């Protein structure tokens, strides 16, 4: 019988909206900024509850990041929101100088990350944002896996003092984590127990990893499945503990190989426990238009691909 089940599918961005709604009522220091994408970021409830704490910047993301830094100086906790492409790559230098190097308590909260925004195509499908953000000294990088976890992460990052990149997306995905969970930044979540292969997944690929583990189980292979919602700081204890048990690794993420979760794990293991490793992600390519599920299949970001990589890496042990 399946270990994890779900009753509904929801988008992670709506989890963010729910988290912001909670913060509008419970944390008067939280302010929100948005670059002309209120509906896409699900900010309606926050704005309804706290109109004076919302700042519409228009389609001007660089200015939005600077204003957020200035609000943080004044003691507020700004959430600067837009699509992941415009909130990271487009404004990298503004984040680097005015937020990260200046140690400002700014939360960069971005939707529509990865291939799953679908039909809009590669101009909007950023697959480099985790890498860009994790390279900045002091930046925390979080990619929660479902609606409930995104809501909990949103509430948690408001409590954390320092710059954070919170990444979520557009498609509806199974809601399988508890609705009242406490989100611990930097603490991986052990989802399934197994000694044959470690599967470390983040974001939308966490559910796919659970599906993959079920398929592997039918083949008599037991996967250790771990949800790495915080890519930086990486929960290296959990990574090491699992790899000492399994001896091989598959990473899974909706991101380039370069700069992603797998890249962080590989760097850690190279220094501490070199182990055979395979990557599920996009391999040095842009995305394209299509339905989310079609894209995930074409680019090998689904349960079938995780199974294939798991079998391959086990054979390399």
């Amino acid at each position, binding site marked *: 019988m399946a270990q994890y089940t779900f009753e509904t599918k929801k988008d992670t961005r709506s989890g963010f909206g729910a988290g912001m709604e909670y913060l509008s009522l419970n944390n008067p220091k939280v302010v929100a900024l948005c670059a002309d994408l209120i509906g896409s970021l699900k900010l309606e409830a926050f704005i309804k509850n706290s109109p004076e704490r919302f700042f519409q910047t228009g389609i001007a993301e660089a200015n939005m990041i600077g*204003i957020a*830094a200035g609000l943080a*100086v*004044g003691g507020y906790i700004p959430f600067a929101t837009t699509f992941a492409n415009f909130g990271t790559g487009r404004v990298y230098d503004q984040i680097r*100088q005015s937020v990260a190097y*200046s*140690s400002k308590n700014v939360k960069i909260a971005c939707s529509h990350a990865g291939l799953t925004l679908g039909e809009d195509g590669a101009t909007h499908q950023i697959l480099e944002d985790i890498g860009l953000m994790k390279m900045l000294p002091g930046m925390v990088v979080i990619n929660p896996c479902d609606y409930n976890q995104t809501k909990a992460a949103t509430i948690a990052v408001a409590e954390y003092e320092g710059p954070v990149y919170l990444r979520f997306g557009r498609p509806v995905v199974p809601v399988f984590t508890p609705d009242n969970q406490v989100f611990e930044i930097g603490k991986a979540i052990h989802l399934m127990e197994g000694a044959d292969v470690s599967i470390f997944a983040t974001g939308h690929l966490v559910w796919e990893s659970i599906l993959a583990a079920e398929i592997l189980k039918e083949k008599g292979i037991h996967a250790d499945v771990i949800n790495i919602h915080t890519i930086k700081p990486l929960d290296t204890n959990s990574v090491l503990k699992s790899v000492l048990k399994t001896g091989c690794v598959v990473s899974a993420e909706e991101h380039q190989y370069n700069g992603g979760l797998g890249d962080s794990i590989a760097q850690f293991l190279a220094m501490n426990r070199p182990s055979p490793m395979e990557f599920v992600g996009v391999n040095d390519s842009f995305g394209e238009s299509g339905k989310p599920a079609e894209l995930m299949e074409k680019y090998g970001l689904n349960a079938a691909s995780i199974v294939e990589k798991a079998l391959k890496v086990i054979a390399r042990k």
Partner: protein
Amino acid sequence: MQTQELEKIASQVRRDILRMVHGCQSGHPGGSLGCTDLLVELFFNAMNLKTDSSGNVIFQMDGKGEDVFYLSNGHISPLIYSVLARRGYFPVAEMASFRKINTRLQGHPTPHEHLEGIRIASGSLGQGLSVAIGTAQAKKLAQDQSIVYCLMGDGEQNEGQVWEAAMYAPHHQVDNLIAFIDVNGQQIDGPTAKVMNNRDLGEKYKAFGWEVLHMNGNNAADVQQTVAKAKELSGKGSPIMVLMQTEMGAGVDFMMGSHKWHGVAPNDQQLADALVQLTETLGDY
């Protein structure tokens, strides 16, 4: 404070700038000298700064209940360092460490090394006005009546982010913001009119919805009067932009009139030739 007293402080600040840049043989003296009179006016006269019961300034990052200044054209760091030190934010002796290894006085200002008086990093141009707007809006939310000041360069007006901020501030009625542009007509590759013509900055900002004032940024009396006028205009619905005509290298005859001294340090003889033109009023560091 009397204009004459401000001029005395300015003379010492100009000495500090030249000695700092000479000391490490690097840095930007031209714009620093040009903007000296404004920063002396702001920090020694116009701005309401937080002090203890003895009148000594206290630095608090959040700037609550006090005026806040942001330097967007961070390359004129010797100027902000001298003014902050002379105002009492950190020891004047620390100026000797400017741009040297392990210093808090980095090439461009940063709060990363916890230098009192610096709230944001600047150096990559075009970002300061946005930050100033953010802090001005934080003050409004907190019902803090203080003013936020920001200085930019005229070459910096080439940056697109400046115009995003220029559009935003009037739209959101950020009227507790007084910004300045150092109109010295020079940038690294030559006169602004040749490198990238700003044309009429005053008309541009007016069209975006700003109150626009003009002043001679190297005339202490004019600076004092215009800053006072700008403060009177604050709180009336519009942000205020002061276009300040300056001479790059102001105060040192052979440094004026070109962009040559934008980012060049004086040698020993040049330093001596410059210092004889500036009275040591407060004691060199």
